[in-house]
């Protein structure tokens, strides 16, 4: 097999982004994926940091934080590149790194993100008089009454109205947002007709579950053009259509850019020559196969995706290259008493430490492999969920890893 310039391991956001950036720079790229990646779980929005102005706040982070190694210039460039990829797939994103955009969640809270799919951008909510929350009969996981109860606390002066559209969608027992998005693709008119009956005006907004298709913006455009009111999608329980749209936007971009995608490819180890990895070994049902490469990007994720595993206490493992994993020791530091508390969870800070080039390092700071770059959720040193940096770190580290 021909030697690839870059092999990216991992089919989540950081893997897709790495492959896209590398391909954009004219390199011959292979993307090895195993499983469905983490995007179907994601809200679709890209959080950078829980701060009013993330770009300013990033400057104040401690030196070991992944963002500090990536650098603001790369973070900025990554955001722009990301928006370019999604725009090309007709999936426009709004926002930048110096402000936060609100999104209405499926429980009726407001979530703030830097890069937000246009379909979820609820910035204009504050200017509207009346807020409709429209569910669909038979669709689970969208509870208009609960959304209104909680949203009212942010907007006590607005008029709220719950609505349930009967679109005759109920086929089996469980219709999720994902099913509804699939069913409505090509049948947008049914949904548009249902929404029109609400008689919402320019002064109103209609909040809907995220069911406007699984690809790009066309379903939304078809519905929106017939309405006077704005429509905003909420987040939802997984599988999440906005996350899947993002996944598909990247896959489209990668295919167009000539990236070879190998699905169902479980990488089991690297081919090591001194301080270099010259290829990776992929295992499938019948045999092992070597993929040779000049550069490897490890984007296998953290505990959620299996990029890091831990069978026994105090012994987390990076299963492919057996890289040293840094973690919080001791039962009392491993997790907090409160699941949703006011401080980071120790276990979630587990990960690989790198130098400024995202090369993995050992305890003494020595580089282990010169042509291996670690990106995304397997970078250690911060709780990306607590600080709401998971998306930002994924795309920014990927951008840097691919441009080095």
């Amino acid at each position: 097999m021909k030697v690839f310039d870059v092999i990216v391991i991992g089919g989540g956001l950081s893997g897709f982004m790495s492959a896209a950036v590398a391909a954009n720079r004219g390199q011959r790229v292979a993307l090895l994926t195993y499983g469905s990646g983490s995007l179907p779980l994601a809200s679709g929005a890209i959080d950078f940091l829980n701060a009013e102005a993330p770009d300013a706040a990033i400057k104040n982070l401690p030196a070991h934080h992944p963002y500090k190694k990536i650098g603001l210039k790369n973070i900025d460039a990554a955001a722009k590149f990301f928006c370019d990829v999604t725009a090309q797939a007709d999936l426009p994103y709004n926002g930048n790194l110096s402000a936060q955009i609100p999104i209405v969640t499926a429980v009726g809270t407001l979530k703030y993100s830097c890069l937000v799919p246009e379909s979820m951008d609820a910035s204009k909510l504050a200017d509207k008089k009346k807020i409709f929350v429209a569910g669909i009969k038979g669709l689970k996981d969208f509870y208009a009454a609960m959304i209104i109860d909680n949203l009212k606390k942010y907007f006590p002066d607005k008029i709220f109205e719950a609505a349930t559209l009967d679109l005759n969608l109920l086929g089996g027992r469980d219709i999720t947002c994902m099913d509804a998005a699939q069913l409505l693709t090509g049948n947008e008119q049914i949904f548009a007709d249902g929404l029109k009956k609400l008689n919402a005006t320019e002064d109103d907004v209609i909040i809907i579950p995220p069911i406007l298709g699984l690809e790009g913006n066309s379903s939304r455009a078809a519905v929106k053009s017939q309405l006077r009111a704005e429509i905003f999608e909420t987040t939802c329980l997984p599988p999440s259509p906005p996350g899947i749209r993002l996944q598909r936007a990247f896959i489209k971009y990668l295919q167009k850019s000539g990236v070879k995608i190998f699905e169902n490819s479980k990488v089991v180890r690297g081919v090591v020559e001194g301080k270099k990895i010259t290829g990776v070994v992929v295992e499938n049902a019948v045999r092992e196969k070597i993929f040779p490469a000049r550069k490897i990007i490890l984007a296998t994720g953290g505990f959620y995706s299996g990029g890091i595993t831990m069978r026994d206490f105090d012994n987390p493992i990076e299963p492919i290259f057996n890289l040293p994993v840094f973690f919080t020791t001791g039962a009392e530091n491993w997790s907090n008493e409160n699941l949703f508390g006011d401080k980071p969870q120790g276990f979630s800070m587990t990960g690989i430490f790198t130098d400024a080039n995202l090369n993995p390092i050992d305890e003494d700071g020595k580089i282990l492999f010169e042509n291996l770059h670690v990106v995304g959720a397997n970078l250690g040193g911060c709780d990306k969920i607590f600080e709401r940096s998971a998306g930002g770190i994924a795309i920014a580290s990927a951008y840097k890893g691919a441009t080095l």
Partner: protein
Amino acid sequence: MEKATVVVIGGGATGLGILRDLSMRGVKALLVEKNDLVNGASSRYHGLLHSGGRYAVKDQEAAKECIIENQIMRKIGKSCVEPCGGMFTRLDIDDEAYEEAWVKGCADSGIEATPITLDEAFKLEPRLSRKHVKSAYLVPDAAVDGFRMSWQLIDSSKRYGGQVKTYTEVIGFDTVNGELRGVKVRNQFTGEEYEIGCDIAVNAAGGWAAFVGKLAGVEIGVQPDKGTLIAFNQRIVNHVVNRLHKSSDGDIFVPHGSITILGTSSMSVPSPEDTSTSREEVESLIKIGEQTFEDLRDFRILRTFAGSRPLYIPPGGAIGRSASRGFAIVDHEQDGLKGLFTIVGGKFTTFRLMAEKMCNQICTKLNNTTPCRTAEEPLVEEVPQADKDRAKKFFPSYGVNLAATRLGVERFKKVVERLESEPESRELVCECENVTRAEVEEICKEDTSFIVNDVRRRTRIGMGTCQGNFCALRAAAVFADTGVESTAKDSLTRMKEFLQGRWKGIRPVLLGRTLRETEMTRAIYELSMAINNAQGGMNNAKNNS
């Protein structure tokens, strides 16, 4: 003023058994519980319906009681008992002389203990350690679902006029000249304080019995003894598997449906409220457990939990022979308070017998001569097969039986009717445990449902593989819609406390696939649902910048 002839304090198996027994004898009884029902040791145990084998050497009187009650439970609580049978296995490190004494003890206590060959044992329990197991016997142990049995006890009591008030804490006793007039209580949610008039009160507060006693100025010797247990996500054993040695920690495995519970430890704790578990306790239980099942560490641990056994200590003595029967009844007339009784100690298997003895004493005082019928009459009627057949259209048959026994005849019928007429009520709120929206709504409306955790204990939502990841949102929303106004509307708090409740049992076993599930929970609720952002607009983002 609200009135009852007898107020029963404590919503565990003992209290519920007393409520049922009194109600069946025509005594107007009301039960108060400061938390939700079966929040103490009655649900925080391994769910073993003892054959008595475990007590055959140490305490034959208890062993005899167990085997008799075991048979009664199978009859009156049929749908709550899984007649899986039990196996006692002696390992190479266990005392052979004990085996001899145990065989004799079983025979003397009327417990059928059938020796089997090792080949048979390994066939019945393929995961048993070939290396360590040296002999094996079959006994009539069984698994019992303490939750379901308790709801059935309530349904049975209610049929005879019994009343239940949950989240109602006893804060004092009203006495005149050494005679009880009533019980003062406080509603835990509204803070409202009031009195319930009564002639007799029974302190059946289990581990909390001493606190209740103190309110009446009487001293009760009860030592909370914490037992920690582990729930594995697979059915590791087919039978209840006991170690054939002097009873000790971590030597019982009990299969329940698709999971297995390993227990238990034993540790004196200052308060029965201490249901914490630690990594060290888990590690020590597994170390003992893997002597019997060497591959134990390969199984995913779902969670840990702990409860406090209320060990009775008689006045002036340590735990002695008088405590060995397991339970004690105290008439506080001896302390100068006429009308108050305390019943303490015991175990789930014999709760009915305890209730019977308690109620006999109460009825003597009340000059009520109606005999006890709790051993003959089934707790609930069986759900008609026709209703189950109707339900099969919407459930896998495994789920039908579980739902039928959870709900009972009337509720099940209502739920099936809803499933038939309203297709959207068929949606699964909890996919892991197959719980439909129709069932959750039905339980949300019950007068014992104040928080989502109460609905969980009734329906099993959130108790399966995903530990609430998906159903927390759904259940909080359904509860907000159908639950009691005072607590249900605060859906975000309900959702958080539900997930926090699951978290408590996950923390000590946060490794392996459980880490993955936890990161998923956090990604959903902290990121996609911004659960920490409730109310404050941009405040949260501002505060943390």
